[in-house]
């Protein structure tokens, strides 16, 4: 049973890992990944010399912490609410509506966002003008985006996340709930004392997996919603967008890989630390 999984990871994860060397090479088409000349840490100079390394690293980390926390919280909330619904038809409809954004690409979402928030004829400003208020310039004001970005992130991913938790909840033995009912527990007590403790292992695993990607920014979202908007950049620049913007023209695979390697190393360190904490607290729930 393990063989296909092992094969998959060897082919798609371990073999390509050899390509890491490109971060230390002066890449050219003729030599390819392995034939290009070595240049040591030259490729890392761009990222750490940009003067933005700290800022984008902090941005990436903070956005992802907020995303992960909000995503986990709302996914669990939605999963519990759906599992408590009794009307079959209503349950299916609400689940479908929540899941739908998962299939919409960020390119399309960026068109929605532009039509909602743009200054001249956006939905928000048209409404504000109709009630006699001053229009607001959302695309030049970073503080709005601290709310808009997590909002759209949750809107897009919560349907998917809630399915994962819902699967765990529906796997809980009904006898637990029956016993709780006999003991006189109300609906909220059942959620607090039965459902949540029983899905805790799933929560821990999913959060740990999320932590493993914590330095990988949601590039599509930032690139499509913010793009090259200089006004918002200090507040919304993440590692991925900085690297893309600086190198998209020069197509320097070496420098881009160097930044990618930096992200991977940070992810690795953070994951090891968090996992060590989990193991100390409850060994059976740690990833390894």
């Amino acid at each position, binding site marked *: 049973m393990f063989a296909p999984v092992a094969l998959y990871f060897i082919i798609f994860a371990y073999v390509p890992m050899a390509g890491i060397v490109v971060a230390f090479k002066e890449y*050219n*088409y*003729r030599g390819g990944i392995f034939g290009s000349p070595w240049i040591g840490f*030259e490729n890392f*100079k*761009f990222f750490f*010399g*940009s*003067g*933005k390394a700290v800022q984008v690293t902090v941005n990436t980390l903070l956005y992802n912490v907020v995303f992960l926390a909000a995503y986990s919280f709302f996914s669990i909330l939605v999963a519990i609410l759906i599992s408590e619904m009794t009307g079959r038809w209503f349950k299916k409809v609400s689940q479908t509506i929540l899941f739908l954004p998962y299939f919409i690409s960020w390119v399309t979402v*960026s068109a929605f966002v*532009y039509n909602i928030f*743009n*200054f*001249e004829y956006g939905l928000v400003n048209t409404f504000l003008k109709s009630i006699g208020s001053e229009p607001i*310039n959302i*695309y*030049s004001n970073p503080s709005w985006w601290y709310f808009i970005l997590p909002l759209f992130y949750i809107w897009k991913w919560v349907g998917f996340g809630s399915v994962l938790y819902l699967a765990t909840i529906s796997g809980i033995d009904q006898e637990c709930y029956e016993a709780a009912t006999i003991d006189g527990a109300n609906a909220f007590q059942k959620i607090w004392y039965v459902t949540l403790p029983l899905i805790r292992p799933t929560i821990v695993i999913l959060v740990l997996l999320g932590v493993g990607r914590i330095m990988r920014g949601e590039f599509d979202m930032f690139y499509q919603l913010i*793009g*090259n*908007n*200089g*006004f918002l*950049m*200090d507040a919304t*620049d993440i590692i991925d967008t*900085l690297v893309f*913007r*600086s*190198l*998209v*023209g*020069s*197509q*320097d695979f070496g*420098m881009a890989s160097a930044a990618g390697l930096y992200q991977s190393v940070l992810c690795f360190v953070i994951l090891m630390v968090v996992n060590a904490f989990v193991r100390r607290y409850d060994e059976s729930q740690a990833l390894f």
Partner: protein
Amino acid sequence: MKKKLLSTVAVVALVCTMGVSGLWAENETHLTGYLLGSAPSGLNDVVAALNQKLKADLNATMDINYIGWNELSSKYPLVLAAGENIDWIFTADWCQYMTQAARGAFKEITVADVQKYMPKHWAATPKQSWGQTKVDGKGYMITTATPDRKVTVFVIRGDLRKKYGIPPVTKFSDLGPYLAAVKKNEPSMVPMNLDSGFDVSSPFGYAMNDFAPPYWSLQISPSTSGFLLVGNFEDPARSSYSILEEPYKAAFVKASKLMKKWYDLGYVNKNPFANTVRSLDSFTQGKSGVAFTNSVNVQANLKQMQDSGFDPEIIPAVCSTGHYPADAFTNNGVAIAASSKAPEKTMQALDLIMEDPAYDYLVYFGIEGKNYVITKDGKVGLPEGVSAEQNTYPPDAAGFWFTNKDLFKPLASWSEKYLALKKMIPSYLYNSTFTGFAFTPDKVKTEVANLTNVMTQYANPLYIGAVPDVDKAFATYSQKLKAANIDKVETEMKAQISAFSSAQK
């Protein structure tokens, strides 16, 4: 038993047809090309007609793919790096030619090859063009035989200008009263509706033209717009500067202040960075008061503007001396991908497309009788009952910009005004002293990457004037440029320019 027999027969039949079609395909060469922009809706019919001709002449067929403007800087190198299924691709000095050639993405084009496989093109092209394509001593581009005689222009609505009593406009920086009239009287229009790709730096650049000495601008990377390291293109000594130095610094600040004034008065849309519709298209649809384009590019939309009852006034935006650097041959060209399996056949096909009138008309204007007709007075016009908007293959729009344009008859849509402009253009053109200079960024890659990033973040708001205080924002910008080591890139540019100068002597 019967069933088994039947399926065996089916399999045998299948294998036979596959074998036959395989053999058939072996004789015929299939070529794949890449152009910029987006495919016109009538492309399939044109390609079908093209393939009929190519099949008869060369036993080849061709399909054509497009790289969209908004993904140009990222997709162009990827198409070449992937190295699959690509024979030829549009290229130009403004479209990554130097970078990709230096990286080995193109096949070398030797004069002997051209004489052998492209005899018509060899005959049509002035010999000096082959000298302009050299990168490290080798040529990789087949340039157009007819570089565009064009200048950058802006287009305004003459009908509105007259309606609101504004005197004729000759300079971009004098546009204020017209913009004010549009803002005041036409609530459905944005006076300057800019997009995130083409237009963000255009009005700023036009203002620079009015305020600065003539300038040539070094494009350090394909995703930036210039105005960083500049040179005087009329100076035989090729003097060069950064925009942190006079006289260009003062012009930069002045241009930005003009843009800020207009931005604050609401003449410019607030969020150009999120808008993807070019001003030329908004203008044609009656949603923008000004269009930013060049005198060749505007042709495709001219007829539609006239059909909508607009009176397009096309005003050249030339340098303060009244000059405009003439296009080099390398401004439009085509290259053969290093991975092409049939470079000779590709060259033969391109020879026909670029220089054979029947092919040239087909790829540039579409199918005769359907997309264009030759009118009685010998002009290229639209067939009866087809409006410019309905035409599925508008002239120039398909992206075959490297073909021989001297083979064409004049267009029926050229108004008196356009013809007058066309006549004037040669008097603006100036042979830039920087023609043929190619900057190789290899030694300053790290600095170029960081400068690219600083420009996107700090220069774009200055270009559209969306900053609270221009002087302060410029101070921040120059400080960030210095931190990204602009001095090192400037020194490198000066060294390369002086090497270029000594090679020219």
